[in-house]
C-alpha cells in the first residue's frame, strides 16, 4: 500500500458504480472509531468541536494555520441497529466530562432521567434491612444524573452527526487489518441474506480507536496480537443484569414517589444494597463466594431501574445473576416497592472491575483503546461512564495535536503515545489509583474479611496492608461441583426455578423478550465451542455453568450436549470470560443483530 494508491481511492466518489460485487471494497478514513458508545462519541464530538473552532479562528484571522478538512474522514461504526441499541448501564453519570464537551447539554435536551437528590445504602438480610447512617464520600451522588444509557448514546450520536461525523450504524468490525505490526483498520461483517452473500468492507484508517466497551472482541484481539497486556494483571469482570419497571401510578402518593416505611423511591433517588441474596451476616466469613450488590435508581416517567451486579470470579458453578436478581426482588422491602409494577425492559452487560493494574498499554501503531475496553472503571464509585468519556476527551486532544502536526497528510499508522501521558496526568489515573485494590477486597466478601481491608484503603488512598492485590482470570476461579462453595443452597438445583409470577419474579426468557434481542437466522451461530468433547468433562466436573450464568439462556443442556440458542444473545460476552474450560468463543454476529435497548 502506498500513498498514491490511497489518494485515488479516497477521491473516488462514484458510489453508483459501487454496487455489490464490484472490486472497490476499501474505504479510507483519517480516524476510524469502532463502537458507538459514550467514549467514542465523546471523542468524536470533542475532536470535531476543536477542529471547528480551529477553522473558525483561521477565518477570523486569529491564528495563521491551514484549515483542517475532516469531511468523510472521521467515522464511527456501531454493530447495533441504531446508536444506543446495544448501550446499557445502571446508570449514574457524573457529568464532569460531559460538561467539558457540551456545557449547555441540558438546554440542548440531554435526556436525563433524574438528578440525584437523595441516596441510601442498605445492608439487607433475608427479612430486614439496615440503612447505613453515613454514606462514604465516594458513593455520594448528589448532582449526578440517572440516565438511560441507550437514550443518552442516541442523543450523543445526533450531536456527533450535527458535527459532521460519519455515523455508520449496523456495521460491525469483525477483524483487525494488521500488517507489519501496525494496525491499518478493520474489516466489516459479511452478510448472509439468503440466497446471497454480501462481503464486508475493509475500512482503513491512520488511527483506529477501539471503544468497543467491556471485553470487546477486537480489543481483546489487539491486546493479544500486540502484547499490550504484558506484565499487567489479567482483566476481571462483573456481570450486571438490569430490569426496568414501570411503577404503579395509583400507588404514587406524593411527587412521583412511593412510601416504603421511612424511605421513598422515585425520580431523584438512588439506592445501593449489599448483602441479601448474595451473602449475609457473619456466614460470609467462611462462605462468601458470591459478592456484589444491587441497585435501585429512580427514573423519569415513574420508572425504576433495578439491577444486580456480581463478580464473575464467583467460585459457585451455579452462579446465575438473573436468578439472584429475582431473589433480590422477593425481599419484603423490594416487593413493597414493586407492588403492582410492570416490567418493561431488561438487559445485561459485563463490567471491567480489575482496576488500575489491569489497564493494558493503550496505544500502538495505528491503535488507541479507550473507555470500558481499556478497563477504565472506578469500582469504588461503581462508575465508569465519566472515565470512559474523559478518556475520549484526552484521546481527542491528542489526535487534534496530531492534526496540527499534519500527521494525517502522511498515511501511515502512528503511535499516539502522548495519550497515555495525558491519561496519567488526568483525574482518571488519580481515581483509579485510589481504588486499585477495592474490587479485589470487595470480592473477598463484605463485611468480612473484605470490610476491614476496605476500611484501611479508604484511609490510605487505596493502600493495602498485604500488598497490591492480584487478579486471576474469572474462568479459572470456578470450583468443581464436588467442592464446597459456601452459601450455595444444595437443595435449590438450577432447574428448580423460583416460582415465576411475571410480576415480581420474571422468567429469564420473558426478560430476554423484553430486551428485544434478535439475530438473523440465516447466519451461522456467532458462538462456537472450541471442542465439544470438553463439554462432557465440564458436565461431570462443573455441571455446565454456562447454562446458569448466561443472562439470556443461550446455553441449554440437552442429552449431554450443549445447545446454543445464539439468537437470544445479549452481547454481554460473559460466556467467553467465564466458561471454566475456556471452551466458548464469542465472535461478532452480523451487524444489526443483538438487543435493541431503548430505555435501558
Amino acid at each position, binding site marked *: 500500500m502506498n500513498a498514491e494508491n490511497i489518494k485515488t481511492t479516497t477521491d473516488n466518489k462514484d*458510489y*453508483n458504480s459501487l*454496487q*455489490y460485487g464490484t472490486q472497490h471494497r476499501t474505504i479510507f478514513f483519517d480516524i476510524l472509531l469502532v463502537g458507538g458508545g459514550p467514549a467514542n462519541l465523546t471523542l468524536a464530538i470533542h475532536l470535531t468541536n476543536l477542529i471547528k473552532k480551529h477553522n473558525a479562528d483561521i477565518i477570523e484571522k486569529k491564528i495563521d494555520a491551514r484549515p483542517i478538512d475532516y469531511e468523510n474522514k472521521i467515522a464511527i461504526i456501531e454493530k447495533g441497529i441504531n446508536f444506543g441499541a446495544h448501550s446499557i448501564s445502571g446508570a449514574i453519570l457524573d457529568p464532569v466530562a460531559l460538561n467539558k464537551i457540551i456545557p449547555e447539554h441540558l438546554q440542548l435536551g440531554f435526556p436525563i432521567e433524574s438528578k440525584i437528590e437523595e441516596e441510601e445504602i442498605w445492608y439487607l438480610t433475608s427479612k430486614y434491612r439496615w440503612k447505613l447512617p453515613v454514606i462514604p464520600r465516594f458513593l455520594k451522588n448528589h448532582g449526578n444524573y440517572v440516565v438511560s444509557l441507550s437514550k443518552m448514546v442516541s442523543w450523543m450520536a445526533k450531536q456527533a452527526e450535527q458535527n459532521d461525523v460519519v455515523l455508520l450504524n449496523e456495521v460491525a468490525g469483525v477483524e483487525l487489518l494488521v500488517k507489519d505490526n501496525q494496525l491499518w483498520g478493520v474489516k466489516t461483517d459479511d*452478510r448472509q*441474506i439468503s440466497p*446471497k452473500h*454480501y462481503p464486508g468492507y475493509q475500512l482503513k484508517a491512520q488511527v483506529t480507536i477501539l471503544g468497543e466497551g467491556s471485553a470487546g472482541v477486537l480489543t481483546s484481539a489487539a491486546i493479544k496480537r500486540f502484547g499490550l497486556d504484558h506484565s499487567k494483571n489479567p482483566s476481571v469482570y462483573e456481570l450486571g443484569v438490569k430490569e426496568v419497571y414501570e411503577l404503579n401510578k395509583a400507588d404514587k402518593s406524593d411527587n412521583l414517589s412511593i412510601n416504603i416505611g421511612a424511605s421513598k423511591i422515585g425520580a431523584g433517588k438512588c439506592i445501593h444494597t449489599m448483602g441479601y441474596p448474595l451473602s449475609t451476616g457473619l456466614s460470609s466469613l467462611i462462605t462468601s463466594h458470591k459478592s456484589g450488590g444491587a441497585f435501585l435508581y429512580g427514573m423519569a416517567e415513574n420508572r425504576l431501574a433495578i439491577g444486580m451486579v456480581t463478580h464473575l470470579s464467583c467460585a459457585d458453578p451455579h452462579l446465575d445473576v438473573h436468578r439472584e436478581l429475582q431473589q433480590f426482588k422477593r425481599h419484603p422491602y423490594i416487593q413493597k416497592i414493586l407492588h403492582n409494577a410492570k416490567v*418493561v425492559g431488561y438487559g445485561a452487560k459485563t463490567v471491567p472491575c480489575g482496576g488500575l493494574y489491569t489497564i493494558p498499554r493503550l496505544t500502538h501503531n495505528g491503535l488507541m483503546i479507550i473507555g470500558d475496553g481499556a478497563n477504565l472503571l472506578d469500582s469504588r464509585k461503581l462508575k465508569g461512564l465519566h472515565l470512559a468519556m474523559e478518556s475520549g476527551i484526552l484521546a481527542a486532544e491528542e489526535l487534534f495535536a496530531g492534526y496540527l502536526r499534519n500527521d494525517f497528510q502522511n498515511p501511515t499508522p502512528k503511535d499516539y503515545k502522548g495519550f497515555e501521558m495525558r491519561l496519567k496526568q488526568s483525574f482518571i489515573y488519580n481515581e483509579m489509583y485510589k481504588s486499585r485494590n477495592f474490587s479485589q477486597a470487595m470480592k473477598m466478601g463484605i463485611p468480612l474479611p473484605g470490610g476491614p481491608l476496605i476500611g484501611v484503603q479508604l484511609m490510605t488512598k487505596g493502600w493495602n496492608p498485604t500488598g497490591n492485590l492480584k487478579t486471576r482470570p474469572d474462568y479459572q476461579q470456578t470450583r468443581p461441583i464436588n467442592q464446597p462453595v459456601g452459601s450455595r443452597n444444595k437443595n435449590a438445583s438450577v432447574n428448580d426455578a423460583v416460582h415465576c409470577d411475571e410480576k415480581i419474579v420474571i422468567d429469564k426468557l420473558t426478560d430476554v423478550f423484553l430486551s*428485544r434481542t434478535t439475530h438473523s437466522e440465516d447466519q451461522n451461530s456467532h458462538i462456537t465451542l472450541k471442542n465439544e468433547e470438553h463439554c462432557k468433562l465440564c458436565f461431570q466436573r462443573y455441571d455446565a455453568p454456562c447454562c446458569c450464568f448466561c443472562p439470556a439462556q443461550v446455553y441449554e443442556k440437552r442429552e449431554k450436549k450443549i445447545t446454543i440458542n445464539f439468537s437470544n444473545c445479549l452481547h454481554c460476552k460473559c460466556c467467553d470470560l467465564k466458561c471454566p474450560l475456556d471452551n466458548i468463543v464469542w465472535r461478532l454476529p452480523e451487524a444489526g443483530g443483538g438487543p435493541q435497548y431503548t430505555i435501558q
Partner: protein
Amino acid sequence: MYKIIVLAKQVPDTKNIIGEAMRPDGTVNRAALPAIFNPEDLQALEMALLVKDRFPQSKISVITMGPIAAIEILREALFRGADDGYLISDKQFAAADTLATSYTLTQAIKTLSGHGDPLEPKNENAIDLIFCGRQAIDGDTAQVGPQVAANLGIPQVTYAFEIVDIGDHHKNQITLKRQLDDVTELVRAQMPLLITVTDSASHARPRDIRRTIFLRKKKIPVWNIRDITASPDRCGLKGSPTNVLKINSVILSLEGKNTQTFEATPQSMDKLAKILRAELHQTGTLER
C-alpha cells in the same frame, strides 16, 4: 434500461411491541413504537434493485407520503441502492384513507414524469415499472397499490415474489411468479406495469457503507400539495370516504375459557390428540 418507481411507507414496528402500543380509544400509539421501513416495501425495493443489477442504467425513484420524519426511509432506500427519493408531505394529506392516498401518489408519479403522460413511451420520463409492497403492517389493507394502477390505467400483477425474466423476449415484457393460496402462478405482462410484492420475495440487501458515507447529506426533495398539483378535495381527510365507526382492541384472555393443562408425556399427548379429534369431528372440519 428501465424507469422504476418504488412506493414505500414508514410504519410503526408492530412486530416488536413492548409497553402501551394501543391507546385506550383503540388507536395506535405511534410514539411508543419505533418507525420502520414497511417490510414488504423493502422487499419491493429489493426486486427493483435486482432489475437494476441486470440493467445498471435503470433508474429507481422511491416515493413515500408521510410526515417529515418519513425522510428516514428514503435515505435508507438510497443507502441500499435507489437513485433518488421523494417525500410527499403536506398537512392536507393527513388522515387519508386508501383512496386519497392512492390519488396523492398517482399525482406524485405524474409529477415525476414531468407532468407529461407517464405512460407515453415517447416521453423520456415515462414510467416502466412501479413496485410496491403488498400491504403495510399498520393498516393491512393491500389496496393502495392496485388503486394506483387503476388511477394510472396500467395493468397490475399482485402478490408477485420473483421476476422470472425481464426484457428477454421483448423489451417491454416481464414474467413474474405470483404467490396465491396454494399455487404459484406464472404471469407474463406488458410494461408499463404495477407490481405488488409479497413477503416471500427475497429480502433486501444491507446498506452499502460507501453509499451511506456519500449520500448521507443528499438533499431529498419534499413536495407539497401544490408541487404535485393535487386537488385538495381529493386529498387527506376531505378526500377520504372511509368512515371508521369504531375500533375494538381485542385482547385474547384465557379467563372464563375452558382450559386444560397437559404434561409432556406420551400418554397425556394421546389424550390431547383424542380431545382435539373429537372437537374437529364435532365442528365437521374432519370427516369421520
